[in-house]
Every structure is written in structure tokens, then in C-alpha cells.
């Protein structure tokens, strides 16, 4: 059994993002594996553990520092990794999908491929679809439950208002994991130490000679202006509430 997990090396969501010029940001912040990808990693490892055989291979398109995220997921139990190196902070999704597909082509046929539902930096929400298209495989994303059957993956995804769709997807397929699928394990120290010795195959994106249309390009990045201090409405409870309703109705026009 071979399960691929696509992992993106992204800034920790708690980190402050300082935008440098135009489309760049200061990358001297803490980077972590994309949280949504970790659900895929945990699922893949569990499936291989249950099967008693097989390997989980992590794939990443990122800069040299991405080895840290790969070591993290290998500490969870991923067996080996492939890193396609690029210094681009926002590589276009179609290019990334092609690179991931190329890596899979090189490393061997997949029984299952996990990605995260979206990345927490560019939030493209489309790599799983593009990758599936490259490989000619079916795809479902936002997966919160998974049961593998003969040649089919029965998955559930959340839609509006908490309702759920159940889908039958023929395998091999690409699945975009999200919160709720499982609880990513906390790595034990022996696994962390072992992960330091596991294989990371590195290659340059440029050396893969893939061409992508790169039809969606980032043009600029602006920080969101934070609100400043709230206008406190004073007086008795009745007075402040009356003032609030008046403002919301007449000035802000939101009720």
C-alpha cells in the first residue's frame, strides 16, 4: 500500500505577517506543516498501521526550510519524503499540482492521495482538484469521515448549516482532509529522534521542467487595517442599549 500526503510549509497562524514589498512577506516567522494537511497525514498513517503494511510518503513543494515540516510529519509516522524546492513564496497552484504529480509519477503508483482542504497562507482551496486532474483521478474535498471499501472510498463532507454529504469515490483518488477527520497524534520522542534520520529526497522545481499556464497570479498583498478602539456607549444599561440601537439603525444601517 502506498499513500501520498501533500504537505505545505506555511507560517504558523499565530504568527504576525509583515508584508515587505508588493507580494512578499518576512519569512522569519515560525513555519509549521499546514494544519489541514496534518489531518491527511494522521489518516494515512492510521490506514497503513491498520493494514499492517505499506508506506506513507510526504510530498512538499517549498523552500529549503520545508524540511522542518517534513521532519514533523515524519515524526508522526510518515516513512519518507520528497521535497520539490522553490523559493517562490506563492507558487501558483497549477504549477504545484504538476510538480506533485511528477513526484508521484517518479515515486510509484498511489493507492490514495491526501491533501489538506486548503492552505492557511494562500487559501487557494484548489490544489486537490488540479492534482486529481493531472493524475486522472477522482477527487473529493472537505472530508470529515473516511471508510475504505473494495475499490471505493466512502467519505462524508460538511455542507451548509452542519448538514453532510456522503460520497462514494472510486479509488485511487485524491481526498482533501479537514478538521474532524481525526485527531493528529502528538509525536513521541523516540519517533521524533527517528524522524531525523528518515529520507528526504530533494529536487529543484526548475529541474523538473514542467510548464504550467500559471493563470492565477498574485499581484499585491496588503495588510488588513485593524479596527482601533471601540466607541464605548456609557450610561445605564437602558441608556447604552438605546444609544446602540439608534446608531446601528440610523448611522450604520445594519438593522
Amino acid at each position, binding site marked *: 500500500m502506498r499513500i501520498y500526503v501533500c504537505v505545505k510549509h506555511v507560517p504558523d497562524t499565530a504568527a504576525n505577517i509583515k508584508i515587505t514589498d508588493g507580494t512578499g512577506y518576512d519569512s522569519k516567522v515560525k513555519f509549521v506543516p499546514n494544519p489541514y494537511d496534518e489531518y491527511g497525514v494522521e489518516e494515512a498513517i492510521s490506514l497503513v498501521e491498520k493494514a499492517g503494511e505499506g508506506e506513507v510518503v510526504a510530498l512538499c513543494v517549498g523552500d529549503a526550510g520545508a524540511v522542518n515540516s517534513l521532519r514533523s510529519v515524519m515524526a508522526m509516522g510518515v516513512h519518507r519524503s520528497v521535497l520539490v524546492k522553490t523559493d517562490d513564496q506563492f507558487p501558483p497552484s497549477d504549477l504545484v499540482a504538476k510538480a506533485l504529480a511528477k513526484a508521484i509519477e517518479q515515486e510509484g503508483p498511489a493507492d490514495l492521495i491526501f491533501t489538506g482542504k486548503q492552505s492557511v497562507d494562500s487559501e487557494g482551496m*484548489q490544489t486537490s482538484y488540479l492534482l486529481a486532474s493531472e493524475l486522472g483521478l477522482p477527487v473529493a474535498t472537505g472530508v470529515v469521515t473516511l471508510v475504505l471499501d473494495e475499490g471505493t472510498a466512502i467519505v462524508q463532507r460538511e455542507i451548509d*448549516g452542519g448538514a453532510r454529504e*456522503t460520497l462514494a469515490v472510486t479509488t485511487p483518488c485524491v481526498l482533501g482532509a479537514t478538521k474532524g477527520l481525526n485527531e493528529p497524534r502528538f509525536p513521541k520522542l523516540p519517533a521524533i529522534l527517528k524522524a531525523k534520520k528518515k529520507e528526504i529526497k530533494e529536487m529543484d522545481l526548475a529541474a523538473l521542467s514542467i510548464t504550467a499556464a500559471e493563470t*492565477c497570479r498574485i499581484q499585491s*498583498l496588503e495588510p488588513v487595517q485593524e479596527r482601533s478602539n471601540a466607541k464605548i*456607549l456609557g450610561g445605564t444599561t*437602558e441608556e447604552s*442599549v438605546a444609544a446602540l*440601537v439608534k446608531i446601528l439603525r440610523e448611522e450604520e444601517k445594519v*438593522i
Partner: protein
Amino acid sequence: MSKIGVLIETADQTIKTSVPGVIAAAALGGEVVGFVLDGLADTYKDQLGAFGVTELVNLTAGELVFSKAPEAAGQALACGVKAFGVTALLGVSSPVGNDLLARAAVALKAPLALDCIDVDFAKNTVKKSHFSGKAIATLEMVGSPFVCGIRPNSFEPADAACACTAKDLAVTIEGCEAVKITKITAAGSGQKDLTEAMVIISGGRPMGSADNFTILDACAEKLSAVVGASRAAVDAGYAAHTMQVGQTGKIVNPKLYIGCGLSGSVQHFAGMKTSKVIVAINTDKDAPIFSKSDYGIIGDLFDVVPALTKELAKLE
């Protein structure tokens, strides 16, 4: 004049609340062509005409039920886009909408951007959140058509009544058997959708119990609002996870967000910072939420919220 396509997302034979906003966005780029997947274009055309849809296309593929075959639905949309020569396909960035738009974009080999808060047809750019709402990225969509999902409540529905003609387009789909939707399980007791809500009132840990949330329900009723909760309240068992607003819960974009007993944590804010107006109610005058809100009342929510409900009742 350009034509801009809009995926008219429906559920239970009803048009989703956020669709008119998307139509308004599309109208900025040209004539709006709506695409319907449930075969009920005739039923919707008058309603949609009121918002500015000129043509409403009934996409069919023989006996195929698109709501059970998302791959086919994506292909059908792609065919529709090509057949009607629209230069862009917009839709609501809901879980279903995102899925269909993505499949259509892949079929069209078109650039795709989801969860956008703005669209500029002249420059062919869209704006969307990056880094969980800490930054706004402007993306250039190179190529025509492009596909774009719009975050609910980003655009106001327009009063742009026009005549709407229903058209049929039958397409042939092949080989889309690999993904089948076999079942839809409804959520619990009529949980309204937070992501589309225009007004949200949320409770934090100080709510103290699940029962106390009825105070918020009463106020929500007067506001036509949906009740949300912070992670702390959910973790304490006072609210269901489906009510959680925040980085690990739902991202919401209402016109009005009222936070009751919320401290204003970074994680919660990531989920609602794009709200147009934020009101905070908290007993602690130093709570961080006051530095991130538009209006604040320093007081006990158990006094303030019922008083607010009473005041709102006076308006009726």
C-alpha cells in the same frame, strides 16, 4: 457587452440566500447569465430577473441528477460557459459552490479563485483573504473565462429588475461515474447557517451554560440573526461545534456582529474580522475585544442582552 455567468446554487428547490449578492457582483461585469442545475429554471426566472439575471440556463444531461454527480455538474457548467460565451463564472463560495466551481474551472482549464471579497472585471483581478484574514491579496486572473467564488455578504443584492428568459441546454456527459453523492444527512435541530448570516450574535464562556444561550436566541429573533459561539463556549459544552465562529470554526462575514462575553482572542477574530460592524459587550473594560470593535458596552451580558432585546422589540 460581456456576459458573466453565475452558478445559481439551490437547495430543496430554493435559491440560496447569498446568490443575489453574487448576481450583483456579476452585473458589474456585464449581462448576467444564470446556470441552474436542478432543472427548475422556469420556477426561478422571475425571482432572478428581479435581481438582474437576463438569461437563465437550464443545464440538463439526460437522466443525470446533478445533485448526485458533482463531476458531471462541473462538466455541465463548463459546457454552459463555453456555449454561452461568458467571460467569467461566479458563484457563492459555499462548500457545495466551491466544489462545483472548482470542477468547472478544471474542466475549462480556467484560472480559479475562491472565497473572494471583491472582483474587478476591468482589470481582471479579484481580492481575497490570505493568512487567515491578516492580509488581502489581489490576484490577476490571466485567461478567459475565469472562475470566481464570492464570499457570502460581500456584495449587496441589487434592485436591477429586468426580463429574464429561461433557456435549455442539454449536454452530453461521459465517464463521470467516479464520484457519487449517495446521501445527504441534515444537521440537527434547524441550525441556521452562520456563514451566510447577515447578523450574528455570539456568546463566550461567561454564558455559563447551554441554557443561557436562550437569552441570545431571544435577541437573535428580534435581529433575524444567527447565534454563534466562541471556542471556549463550545469546549465548555455550552454550544454545538457547528456554532463555533473562528479560525477552527466558521469564517463569517456578517453586516453586524455582536460579541457577548467574548474576550477577543486572535483565533476568534480570524473568523469574523471582516464583519462590517462589530459590537462588544463585556464586563471587563480592559478586555482586548474593545480595542478591535466599533462599539462597546461595558456591562454584564445578562443585563445588557435582555435590555437590547426589549429595545429592539420597541422597533416592531
